[in-house]
Each structure stands twice: as structure tokens, then as C-alpha cells.
């Protein structure tokens, strides 16, 4: 195992919420895209809801990132070289890549949001109809999935103990992002009056995402080896228990019932578990 002596970067609550909301925004868009491409007419309202949800959640993300900077007014230095005024892009720096992905994904989320709004009024923006529209949401979904997962890679591409001792963080946060996205969509869907068919589909999808997340949690700890013992401190153990409750209980509920109230309870637990996971990963390595 690599031995480094690193000062924690003091990435705290802004980053935790960015990871959480970025996972939801990217995941919800991807689920909306898949529902739109593969679903039937009964799923169309839920797909539209996904696009309506993604942008407002995403809009908070750049604000959080900017507020986290020591010099918020210099946020543009991430994208533009302040000396040459050329573009700044370093493919080997996940923070640099992530900023561009966030920016590009905002464009996709914005256009899909407008299209969903237009669709609510009974019209469809012509450029998103047909093959071009399908390609558009597929590309948007790729950026959304990237946004949900790159945050873990950002942590790993450092020398911070725990973060840099595992390759599984990106995968884990992506699986969790998909799970909290399905839970968010399921929750909002069940609050409204949508087809039960779409609700059942979301529940089934969340089942797969939760199983994937549980497998990756095991992989995460196995890849950490002895370093993972830092998480055995009581305060982190308490959060890991919340993470487990936020995965195992919803999974059990998904298998046992698809009734409305338990399903909504499961979605809330998934969201709490997803937030707890990000808190323990971000803070646990820095303390």
C-alpha cells in the first residue's frame, strides 16, 4: 500500500452536496433517456418528469462548486487560462474534465428541459423528434452518467489516503447516483398521478442499482484493505450503518411490496443512505 503524508484539502459540505445532487441530476437524466428510448406511451410522462427534474437539481451544482472556491469570482479560471485566454483542459485532471462535463451536460439538460416543458403544452420541439432527438438524449445520458461517477475518480486521483488507495470510488458513487436518481424519480412520480407501470419499472431498476451498489461497497472495502480500518471509528461506523440501512431496507421493501407508502419510504431511505455515503467518504478520509 502506498504511504503518503497529505494535508486534507478541506472539501466539506459544499462538495458533499455537489456529489449528491450531481449524482441525482446525471442519473435522473440517464433514466429519463432510457425510459424515453425503451418505454411505451405510458412511460412518456415519467421520462418528461425526469428531464424536468434534472435541470433544476443540476443548476445548484455550479453554485456549490463556486462557493467552495477560495476565490469564487475566479471560477472561470477552471475553463479559461487567465494569462493567454485560451481554453483550459487537462484530460488527466478529473477536476478539469469534470468542469467541462458539467458545462456541456448543462446544455443537454437545458435543451431537454425546454423540450419537456414544450411537451407539457402539447407540442414537441422539432429538432428533438425522431432519430436526432434519440441521439441527443443518448449523448446527454452519457454526460449525465459521467457527472454521476467522475466525482469518485476526482477523489481517487489524489494522494489522499483512502481516496487514492482504491479504484472503486467512481464506480461506487455512480451506482449510488443511479440508485438515488431512481429513488428521486420514483418519489416524485408517486407524489403525482402517473402510470403504475412506470413506477414499477423504476422500482425494478432501483433494485438492480442497489444490488450493484452493495457489490461495489464490498469491492471498495476489499480494495482499501487495512487502510479501511480508519472507518472503524464510531462516528464513521454510525454513518456506514445509515448507508447499509439506506440500501438493504429499500431492497427488502422492493422485493416484498410495490405498494405506494412502503415504496415512498424506501425511496426516502435510499436518498438518506446516498447522502450518508458521500458524507462518510468525503469527511472520513480527511479526519
Amino acid at each position, binding site marked *: 500500500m502506498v504511504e503518503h503524508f497529505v494535508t486534507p*484539502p478541506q472539501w466539506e459540505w459544499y462538495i458533499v452536496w455537489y456529489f449528491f445532487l450531481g449524482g441525482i441530476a446525471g442519473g435522473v437524466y440517464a433514466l429519463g433517456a432510457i*425510459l424515453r428510448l425503451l418505454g411505451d406511451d405510458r412511460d412518456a410522462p415519467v421520462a418528461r418528469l425526469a428531464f424536468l427534474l434534472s435541470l433544476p437539481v443540476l443548476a445548484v451544482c455550479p453554485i456549490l462548486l463556486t462557493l467552495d472556491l477560495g476565490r469564487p469570482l475566479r471560477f472561470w479560471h*477552471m475553463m479559461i487560462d487567465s494569462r493567454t485566454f485560451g481554453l483550459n483542459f487537462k484530460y*488527466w485532471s478529473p477536476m478539469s474534465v469534470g468542469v467541462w462535463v458539467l458545462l456541456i451536460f448543462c446544455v443537454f439538460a437545458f435543451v431537454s428541459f425546454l423540450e419537456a416543458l414544450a411537451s407539457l403544452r402539447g407540442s414537441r420541439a422539432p429538432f428533438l423528434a425522431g432519430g436526432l432527438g434519440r441521439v441527443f438524449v443518448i449523448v446527454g445520458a452519457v454526460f449525465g452518467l459521467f457527472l454521476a*461517477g467522475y466525482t469518485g475518480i476526482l477523489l481517487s486521483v*489524489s494522494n489522499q489516503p483512502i481516496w487514492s488507495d482504491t479504484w472503486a470510488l467512481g464506480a461506487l458513487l455512480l451506482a449510488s447516483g443511479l440508485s438515488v436518481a431512481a429513488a428521486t424519480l420514483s418519489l416524485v412520480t408517486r407524489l403525482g398521478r402517473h402510470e403504475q407501470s412506470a413506477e414499477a419499472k423504476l422500482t425494478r431498476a432501483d433494485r438492480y442499482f442497489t444490488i450493484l451498489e452493495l457489490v461495489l461497497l464490498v469491492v471498495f472495502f476489499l480494495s482499501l484493505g487495512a487502510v479501511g480500518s480508519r472507518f472503524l471509528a464510531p462516528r464513521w461506523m454510525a454513518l456506514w450503518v445509515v448507508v447499509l440501512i439506506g440500501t438493504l431496507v429499500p431492497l427488502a421493501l422492493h422485493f416484498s411490496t410495490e405498494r405506494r407508502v412502503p415504496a415512498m419510504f424506501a425511496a426516502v431511505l435510499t436518498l438518506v443512505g446516498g447522502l450518508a455515503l458521500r458524507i462518510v467518504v468525503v469527511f472520513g478520509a480527511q479526519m
Partner: protein
Amino acid sequence: MARTVGFFTDTTLCIGCKACEVACKEWNQLPGHAPQFGDGYDNTSQLDEQNWRHVQFHERTTAKGGVAWNMMSDVCKHCALASCMEVCPTNAIIRTEFDTVYIQPSVCNGCRDCIAACPYHVIGFDEASGLARKCTFCYDRLQANLTPACAKACPTESIKFGDLDTMREVAGARLNQLRGQGMSEARLYGDKEYGGLHALFLLTDKPEIYGLPPTESAVLPSRNNVRGYLGTLVTAALGVAGAVFAFRERGGKE
């Protein structure tokens, strides 16, 4: 005048006077933190945004059962392959004409990615300015053809400054001299790590004792890029497959 400069810190000559710390703070106008006193003479604790030099005191038991200090004036290593520079998204961290690593205060936006990347816990975040800060190798003094303040102030010449190649020669000669005198535990740190450091250290114990990663741990953050992206890509494929399967599945309670 462009040249490749370096420090050579000979810890066997360090007397722990902290003249380097004081000179650094004076020249760079660093107010420092309030002193913290533990059970030793170290009252600066670590390198950070205010402490660009830090004199470490490490107690050790001698062969005769006595107690002795290993002292070392720590500083930014100005790595040839610098982890901080690799991850910096704004290109605020540059390599100067002296081959040193410098954070441009006018470019840094305080994202702190460099802090998580530095394996020598060198960089600190300055709340007052909102910037990441560390040793500049006295960039302004180098431009004026002056010796960095710490090396200038060191009364025992434990901190030596000069062209990097010269420093390597001096360090090698000193290592041979000490080993010739029977100090078999003497070792040189910084020749191989991160492509060669611009701050070489002559140590009398394992690097880890001084907060220096062992040679085999001197690896860059980018080592995790490929496997991180691959793991995420596989997960994305499995996640999409799961969603496709779930959304296409028929029957059940639809």
C-alpha cells in the same frame, strides 16, 4: 538568468535553531500561526500556508540507551514530476525558469486539488487570501540572483543552495564521507523520487520518520485515472443494462 536550482539539506548539521523558519517568514511576510507547544521544541507543527519551512524534531533512542534528536528543516520539494502541478485545473501551478514549482497567486482560485495531491503535506489553504500557498523557493530573490532566505540564514550550512547538479555532487560526497566514518544509517533522499526532487535531504533514519514517503510510494495521482475510469465505465454499462432490463421487463404488477 535561467538555471536549475536546488536545496541540499544535511540533517546531520541541523541544530534546530529555526533561523530558516524566521528568515522565511520575514522575507515572505508570513505572520505565522500562534505557537503550539507540545512535549518538544517544535512549535510550528507542520508545513502549511504560513510555515514554508518547518524544523522537525524527532526523538530517538541511541545505541547506548540515551535519547537524541533527529532534526530536519523541511520544505517544498519542488518535484520534477509534481503531483500538485499535475492535478491543478487552472494551470496556476507552473514551473519557473529556475525549474522550481510556483503557485501563481493571480491565477489560483483556491480549489485545493493541489493540497490533496501533495504527498509531502506541503501546501496549505490560506483562508485570508482564499489561495493555496507554499514555498516559492524565494522566486523573487532568485530573479534578483540572491540566495533563498532560509539557506542564507542557516548558521551551520545544514541548508545548502546552488545549481541542482552541484547539490547532487555535494550530497553524494557528504554521504560517502559519513558512511566512511561508519554512519551506515546515512542515506540520501530525493535523487529518485518524483523524477528527482529539487530539495535533497541527507537523512539518518527511514524517510517515513521525517514524513517523507518511501521511494516505492513516490507515485503520482494520475496513476488512478485509468483504473478509476475503467471501473466507472463497467459500472455505467451494468447500470444501463439493469435499467434497460427493468424497463423492458413485462409482467409482474404492472
